[in-house]
């Protein structure tokens, strides 16, 4: 029995030691000038660049930015372990219900628009496709331009690598979750996709709106040409808003940061990162 009590005491000391230490230190993020941002890898470059500029201007600020995906960010906001959740999609109804059950009221802030342009080589006579045709090309159902009224030339499919936010958006908005054909050439950047398409006569690819140039031809999709106006007006079909979510209408430093991202200076960063600015 004595040995039992001794072991229980050792157990209590082992447990109490670190417990007291971390209690004295206080939980992470409670510091008055700390902000934790977590979520979408698509929004990550905007959040990182904005946080860097904001911290340069406000040296007392400490902003931690990490990815993990929209679902992870929203789950953390609901669990109250982050201050801002980055999301490349709107919060789901089930997440809203979980948030309500946890006493969290997610407030959406649209910080940018994401517009993805389907591009071909300048020599390609095709100038318009619909989303179904693009999907069929990328899933392998259509493999020659002649099937779309073009020349008898094999389609060379160029895609972004699976870890990119652009790939994720294209999967959701065009492929509806279906897999890209296995022989697609995967490129690590928007610039690499544009460059490969410009050099390859039968190629098709997709890039962010900011990467269009005279070297490549953007296609009309479902009758709408991609442009800042058609993306912002919600007319171009391969576009989506990008969000930062906070618990309720933010106050203090969190509000200052959200206001900064929405400001002209913040929207300049959005442009620089290849997304469509709201201003």
């Amino acid at each position, binding site marked *: 029995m004595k040995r039992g009590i001794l072991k229980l005491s050792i*157990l209590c000391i082992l*447990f109490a030691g*670190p417990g007291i230490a971390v209690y004295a230190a206080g939980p992470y993020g409670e510091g008055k000038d700390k902000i934790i941002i977590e979520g979408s890898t698509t929004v990550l470059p905007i959040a990182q660049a904005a946080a860097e500029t904001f911290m340069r201007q406000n040296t007392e600020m400490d902003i931690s930015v990490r990815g993990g995906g929209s679902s992870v960010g929203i789950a953390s906001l609901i669990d109250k372990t982050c201050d801002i959740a980055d999301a490349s999609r*709107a*919060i789901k109804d089930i997440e809203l219900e979980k948030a*309500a*059950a946890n006493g969290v009221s997610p407030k959406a802030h649209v910080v940018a628009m994401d517009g993805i342009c389907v591009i071909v080589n300048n020599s390609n006579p095709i100038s318009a496709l619909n989303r179904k045709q693009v999907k069929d090309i990328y899933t392998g159902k259509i493999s020659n331009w002649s099937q779309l009224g073009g020349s008898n030339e094999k389609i060379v499919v160029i895609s972004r690598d*699976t870890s990119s936010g652009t790939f994720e958006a294209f999967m959701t908005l065009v492929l509806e979750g279906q897999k890209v054909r296995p022989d697609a050439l995967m490129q690590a950047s928007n610039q690499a996709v544009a460059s490969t398409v410009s050099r390859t006569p039968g190629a098709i690819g997709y890039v962010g709106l900011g990467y269009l140039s005279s070297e490549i031809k953007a296609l009309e999709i479902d009758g709408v040409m991609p442009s800042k106006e058609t993306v912002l007006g919600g007319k171009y079909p391969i576009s989506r808003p990008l969000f930062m979510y906070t618990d309720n209408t933010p106050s203090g430093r969190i509000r200052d940061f959200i206001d900064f991202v929405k400001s002209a200076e913040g929207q300049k960063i959005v442009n620089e990162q290849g997304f469509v600015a709201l201003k």
Partner: protein
Amino acid sequence: MKKFVTAIVLVGFIVLVAGMRLSYAGEIDLLLQKLVEKGILTPGEAQQVKTETKEEIRKEIAQAKYELLPEWLQRVKFKGDFRLRYQFKRERGASDDNIGRIRLREGVEVKVNDQMKAGFGLATGTTSDPRSTNVTFGGSSGTPASFKDITVDYAYGQYSPTTWLTFTGGKFKNPIWQPTDLLWDTDLNPEGFNAQLDYRLNPYFGLFLNAETFILAYDSAKGSDTVLWAVQPGIKYNLHDWLDLRAAVTGYFYTNLKGKGKYNRQSTNSLDSANQYKYNYNAVNPSIEIGVKDPFASFPLLAKYIPYAGLYGDFVYNPDPETGKSGFDAGIKFGAEKVGGWGQWQARVMFAKLGRDAFLDIFPDSDRYSGKTNMKSVEFILEYGLGKNTSLALDYYWAESLSKQTSGGAAGSNIPQQLVQVDWNLKW
């Protein structure tokens, strides 16, 4: 900025008048379009107001729906699962065994107040086997299609004074973290108390600590219960979303075990002349798991099919016995990090070896060599997603005793066993 604020006030007024109903969304669009045409808003600002307003309305509807639920239902969460299994077992010296099995589990968790929870779960199974919630088709001898027993799987109370500290008492899911089920069958729910600290030092690094008291046997006659005390300090590390690492060292300490105890054991631990446990099972058990997202990012074809890969392992050492005092396992998994939908898959391969007295033989996975110690095994699992919350899994074990049989027809040989399980899993 002033024009933007005016527009938000105007739209807010419309939403208010509209009674937060989505049917008025079209009117908001028209108003925003007019404001853009008159140059009061830019198209981007209009898009921002439109989307944020729509999201605000969705939130209001979700909150209203939630608030319409009875107060008690708002505090209750239900979860459950059903598993249909086909199992084939082949063992030297025994007949081949083909059986069909089901498992049903249903659990409830109630938020008592902001700091306290209570939960309980019911499951199929028998009170005599804490390591299995399966019931076998035709298992009741002489009674075809008999009713199946439902038992209390777990029942606990929980107190969390902060977000990072939780105390649990009752019969509960084992909080000791293990990357595999080599030492702890996942169906086994300890009875006793646990204190858990889970503290995030920064977005990348966290500490956790479990301190558990597991009452193995109540002994009123001698006033000396058999108790397992376990302490598990560990770390969690996440590097830039592509690397996840978790590592821990668990110490197990028993009181009143050596020279006592004849539990529902598998007859592999060593016994003394009085047929009681010959050794103590105080042991140390380091564990590690490393997961990498997009491990083949540089190889597009592989990257497409293998978005995740992980390595994991355990080691256990009991200093008391002279032989058979250690065990280990090591494995890899790859495919989807979690099988969550149609077409997603994950494969796992694991090698394990567990000495006769390395760990108490009432705890290990009951499927691996019938839950015995003194064995080595290879396990292969392939899980394939059939849709949301449902999957098909194939689990194959090859195992063999470490020591040779001393009598009977197979004397001088190890005793191999093969087990194949095909599971259809449904969760809700």
